[in-house]
Every structure is written in structure tokens, then in C-alpha cells.
């Protein structure tokens, strides 16, 4: 009799069990980031941020009641290992992937994600070419791209220092250094054809010494020195330039320097232009008084001993995009757990907010993200430069229209373009 009762109970429970399986025990998310190598200056803070954020998401009931489970893959292990690990993770049941930091890796991952039919959110790579050269079903970008970032730097430069006549560039000799200069130079050529490019230097990636370039730049004395370098390369260049007085002669435009401010200490003096790869700044003028923003910043600083830098914000956007898509898809389904196609459909036109301003996903899967630029000042209580004269640009106006190619499009910009942009300004 007891056996019969148990069998009956089991039969009754079966449909319930089948229904319950629709909502998984965990939402498995793979994250690729540089955890070793020079780019770990971005990957490690992003990993720390992801752990804090997912802990908070899960403490608040997870995504639609499902806890998030993170697995990290080290991009520093090389592209071959990355793709092997990526494939293994997806085949082992990952529901979504956040990949990646390197633009080169994004170019590899995007078609792989398409082959594996897995949702992939490009959370940090910047190459504008991904959605200009191909279209994808499963791949989305939760941030801006290189074109948006470079145009913000051009626009800010034209607004705050319109009288410059000469410019030189010192970029890392790899795809980002070359591509970013291509966009910047083309835009400048269209908007200020009178400006002369007096020097183009592309020292090798990871160069420990910029002495010769600095001597040459001191002899050239350009009004503006652009460098889209990052990490240790940017730190070394600015430190050596400051030691030799070059920062007193030329104005530096450093679109990625927000991530180096704390490390540079007093080596970046006042008056140089700093970009934040989005509106990403630990002292964000619109968000710094929000309780959730302050709480996160405190947690991050407690965990890492450092201020949050832009990859932290990009990670917040990647995770916010994932959560917003599941929420939107579940809402459209009357609160039921959505399937993969329904989540993917939710991405188009999706609006979500990480630590900065809200971001939207365009029909070509490109994120439209606001851009903040500022000027360095060494006037605060902190032992490193902070930003003043901050401007936040509308990302949509700086992003190449759907269907167009970036370098060609920026070449069509007309002088006076920067004056017509939507911008919010903050003194400090």
C-alpha cells in the first residue's frame, strides 16, 4: 500500500516537476576577461565588480527568481585557449556569455557565438567593425564603440581648445592604436582641415621607454598630443612626459586616461583632456549622490582598495543588459521564464542602466552609450588628478548611423558639427 501511495504521489508530481524545469536552478553566465597580462588592469577590476554585482543580484532574488552563476575565462591565455574554453563552457550549458575585452577576441568570438547559438553580450571591446562588417542574431554590444569614443574626444577638444593648430599622436602599435587614430584623424580632417599633423608615433605595444618620442615631441612642440594608449603604456608615457616637462608644453588628449588617474598620482598635471570610454567615472556628476551608486563604490573600494574604473562600469552594463532582457522577455510572457529566442528578441530596443546613464541597444545590436570627457585638475583632497569641466555627450549623435561605415561617415562631418551636439556640462 505504501509503495502504491508513493508511486501515485510521484505520478502526480511529474507534471509539476516538468513545469518547474522551465525555470532553471541557476542562470549560468560565462565571462571572458583578461585576468593575466597587461590588459588585466581592466579584466581584474571587472571580475571583482562582477562578483560584487552578482552577489547583490542573487541577494535580491536573482534574475526572475533564478540565481546567477558566474564562470570566468582568462583572455590572457591566448585566443586559442579562449575559444576552446568558450566552446566548452557553452557546451556544458552556459545560458549566456559576456565576451570580451579585446577587439581581436570579439572578432573571433562573435561568429563562434553565432555558430554555437548562444547569447553573447560584448561588454567591453570597442572595435566599430563588428556590426559594420557583419550582422548577428546572438551577439549584442552593451556599450559604445571606438567611433563614439573618438568623436567624443574630438568634440570636447574642439569645444574647450578650439584654437589649436598642430597635433601629434603617440599610440600603441596594434589594431586599437591604429584604428582609433584613423577615426580621430579623419574626423579632425573633416572638421578642422587647417590643423596640421606634425608627428605620428606608434611605439610597440608594451614599450617601456618613450624617451626618444618625448625628445622629438619637445622639438616639434605640437599644441595637442593625442594618445589612446592605456594601462602601463599610458602610465609610462605620461610619467616620462611629465618628468621631462612635455606636459607643460602641449595639451594632452587621453581618451582612456580615466582608468589611469589613480595610478598616475601627481604625474598628470592640470589642464589635460581625459576621456572615460562612456560616462564612466567614480565621481559621476549625475549619479554620485544616488544611494545604489554610493553603496557599490564603497563595496568596490573596500574589496579592491582602488577607485572603480571604466571596465567596472562596462561590466555593470553587461549584467544590467542581461537582467533587463530576461525581465522584459518574462514580462511579455506573463511572468513565465522565457526561452532563448524570446530573450534575444527582447534585446532590440532594450534600455538598461548600469552605473552610468541608461544605455539602449539599436537594431543593429550596437549599444548607444553616453560619453563623458573632462579636464584634469590636481586640486582635490585626493593624491591624484580628478576631473573638472566635465561634459556628457549624447551617444546617439556620436555613433555611426546603421548601415554606414565609420571612417567614411566621420569623413562627411561638417565644420561646426560639434556646436550642434547635445551636451550637459558640469564644472566638477
Amino acid at each position, binding site marked *: 500500500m505504501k509503495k502504491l501511495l508513493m508511486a501515485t504521489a510521484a505520478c502526480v508530481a511529474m507534471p509539476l516537476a516538468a513545469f518547474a524545469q522551465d525555470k532553471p536552478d541557476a542562470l549560468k553566465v560565462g565571462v571572458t576577461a583578461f585576468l*593575466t*597580462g*597587461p590588459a*588585466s*588592469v581592466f579584466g*581584474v577590476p571587472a571580475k571583482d565588480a562582477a562578483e560584487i554585482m552578482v552577489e547583490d543580484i542573487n541577494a535580491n532574488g536573482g534574475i526572475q527568481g533564478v540565481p546567477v552563476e558566474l564562470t570566468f575565462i582568462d583572455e590572457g591565455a591566448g585566443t586559442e585557449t579562449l575559444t576552446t574554453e568558450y566552446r566548452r563552457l557553452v557546451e556544458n550549458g552556459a545560458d549566456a556569455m559576456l565576451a570580451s575585452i579585446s577587439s581581436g577576441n570579439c572578432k573571433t568570438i562573435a561568429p563562434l557565438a553565432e555558430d554555437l547559438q548562444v547569447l553573447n553580450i560584448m561588454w567591453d571591446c570597442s572595435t566599430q567593425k563588428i556590426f559594420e562588417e557583419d550582422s548577428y542574431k546572438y551577439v549584442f554590444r552593451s556599450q559604445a564603440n571606438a567611433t563614439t569614443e573618438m568623436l567624443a574626444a574630438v568634440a570636447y577638444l574642439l569645444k574647450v581648445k578650439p584654437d589649436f593648430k598642430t597635433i601629434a599622436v603617440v599610440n600603441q*602599435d596594434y589594431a586599437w592604436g591604429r584604428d582609433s587614430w584613423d577615426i580621430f584623424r579623419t574626423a579632425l580632417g573633416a572638421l578642422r582641415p587647417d590643423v596640421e599633423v606634425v*608627428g*605620428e*608615433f*606608434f*611605439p*610597440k605595444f*608594451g*614599450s*617601456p*621607454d618613450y*624617451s*626618444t*618620442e618625448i*625628445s*622629438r615631441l*619637445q*622639438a616639434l612642440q605640437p599644441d595637442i598630443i593625442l594618445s589612446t594608449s592605456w*594601462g*602601463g*603604456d599610458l*602610465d*609610462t608615457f605620461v*610619467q*616620462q612626459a611629465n*618628468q*621631462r*616637462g*612635455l606636459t607643460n608644453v602641449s595639451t594632452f588628449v587621453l581618451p582612456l586616461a580615466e582608468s589611469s588617474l589613480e*595610478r598616475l*598620482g601627481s*604625474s598628470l598635471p592640470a589642464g589635460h583632456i581625459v576621456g572615460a570610454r562612456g560616462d564612466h567615472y567614480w565621481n559621476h556628476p549625475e549619479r554620485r549622490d544616488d544611494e545604489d551608486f554610493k553603496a557599490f563604490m564603497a563595496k568596490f573600494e573596500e574589496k579592491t582598495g*582602488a577607485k572603480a574604473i571604466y571596465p567596472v562600469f562596462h561590466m555593470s552594463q553587461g549584467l544590467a543588459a542581461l537582467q533587463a532582457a530576461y525581465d522584459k522577455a518574462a514580462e511579455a510572457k506573463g511572468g513565465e521564464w522565457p526561452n532563448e529566442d524570446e530573450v534575444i528578441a527582447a534585446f532590440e530596443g532594450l534600455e538598461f542602466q548600469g552605473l552610468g546613464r541608461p544605455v539602449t541597444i539599436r537594431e543593429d545590436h550596437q549599444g548607444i552609450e553616453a560619453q563623458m570627457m573632462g579636464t584634469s585638475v590636481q586640486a582635490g583632497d585626493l593624491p591624484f588628478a580628478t576631473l573638472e569641466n566635465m561634459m556628457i555627450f549624447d551617444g546617439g549623435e556620436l555613433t555611426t548611423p546603421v548601415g554606414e561605415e565609420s571612417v567614411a561617415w566621420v569623413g562627411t562631418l561638417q565644420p561646426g558639427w560639434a556646436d550642434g551636439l547635445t551636451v550637459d556640462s558640469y564644472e566638477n
Partner: protein
Amino acid sequence: MNLTLFLLALFDGIAYAALVFIVAVGLTLIFGVMRILNVAHGSLYAMGAYLTASLTTFIISAGLPPIFAFPTMLVSAVLIGALLGGPLEWLLLRRIYHKPEVLQLLVTFAIFMILEDVQRLIWGTQPIFQSAALQLMGTVRVFSVNYTVYQLILLPIVAVALLVGLRYFLRRTVAGKLILATTEDREAAQAIGIDADKVFLLTFIVGAGLAGLGGALASPTTSILPGIGADMIVLSFAVVATAGLGQIEGAALTALLIGLGRSFAVYVWPETQVLVPYVIMVAVLLVRPEGLFGSPSARKI
């Protein structure tokens, strides 16, 4: 290029060459004596840089005079040589001297990888910068261009002193003569009572110390971060191969050639600056496969 720019390029080239020579000379010394291409030399260089930066930061934070940053460099070099170089040779390398060269390369590469991870464990992944020594010496103005006294004057002086000192050590001191004798013919040296094991140990300690000294001297001028060892070992190999393996004077001349070549490339044709060291290496090896100062039969240090 006018005379002013020519002289500026010359100064930049000499300053760069000095640092490259200081690192490469340790590598060539080890190869000259022990016939081992020590890939871990790059890690020893990085460890020297990290250690110097940490010790200098400690000195500054402890309120001690910044001038102590200079003896700190020597202390770091000695510590790297004695505490890392000594045990590495004694515990590991002496077991593989008679093994195939490819195994020696793999073992030293493994040491390199392990030490890279040790650096990450101790110092993390964020770039470190400690330039107290460089700031202390200030700048000097040459043709309207500011140079740091540290790079323009101190580094070349140290490089020349090192070259002269090594020559004196090898040719005028007993320890140096023992090293030379062992280099020429290990079996004959042992036959007349020279303890080759001790000579190898001493050589490796000195070579590792020179790598550490290179890192220590480089530390005030650059950001110290994971990967700096790999960058320097590639350049050092280029110097050592171009000079002729084991050639100290050749290393000095090659470092100067590479430094000047790179510097003039930046002034004249910046696109080629990355290629220049390797173009020089290929050009030399095509004409003289044994290197500028090398000999196809017997090598001397």
C-alpha cells in the same frame, strides 16, 4: 635632419643603449661561461625592478631620505643574484648542463613562467611606478629639450663602468681568471684543480645580479607590470645574438647600434622603430652568422 636633431637622436640612442647593455651583459656572461641561454633572465630583470620599486616606496613612506633609493638598487641586485640566482643554479640548472640544449631552454622558460606568476602573486597586476631616484637627479636642458640627468648621464656612466669593471674582473682577478679558464676548457680546468661547480655558481649569481641590476636601474624610468620581463628578454637575445654569444664588448657595441638605430628611426622614419633592432640583427647574422664579435670555433668572454 639638422645638426640639433642629429645630436638629440644621438643622446636618446645612447641613453637607451646603456640600459639595454646593462641587462644583456648578464645574459651574455652566463652563456659565455655556462653555454645556457637563460630565458629566466627576463624574470630576474623584472624581479629586480619590482623589488627596487617596493624597497624605495618603503624608504619614502618610512620618511627616510630619498637618496637611499640609489643603494636600494644595488641591494636589490645583490638579493636577486644571491637569493634567486644562487638557488636556481644550485638546485636546478646544474642538473641539466649535459642535457640537450632544447631541454635547457624549456627549463629556463619554465622558471620564467613560474617567476612571472610569483610576481603577480606578490605585486598584483596593476602597474607600479616609483621614480624617486630619477626625480632626485632632476633634468638638464639640451637644445631646448629637457632630459632627465638619470637617463642622459647616470645610465651611460653605469654602463661604461660595468663594461670596464667586468673586463677588469675577468682579466685581473683570480675569480675572473678561474671563470675564463673554465670557459675555455672545463675538463682541463678541473684537471688542474679548479672547482667548476663553484665557478658556474659564481657566474650565475653574477649574471642574475646583473639582470636584477638592470631591472633596478630601469625601475625609476618605467611602469613595472606583468610582461616587462618578456619584453626585455627578447631585446637582450637580439643584442646577444648580434654581438656573438658570450661577447661582452660585442654586447656593448650591439646595444649601442640598436639604441642609435631605434632612436634615429623615431626621428626620421617612426614607422620602422619597432623593426630596427631585428633588422640590425638579421643584417649582421646574414654576413656573420657567429655574430659581430663571435668566432665559429672557440668563444671567449
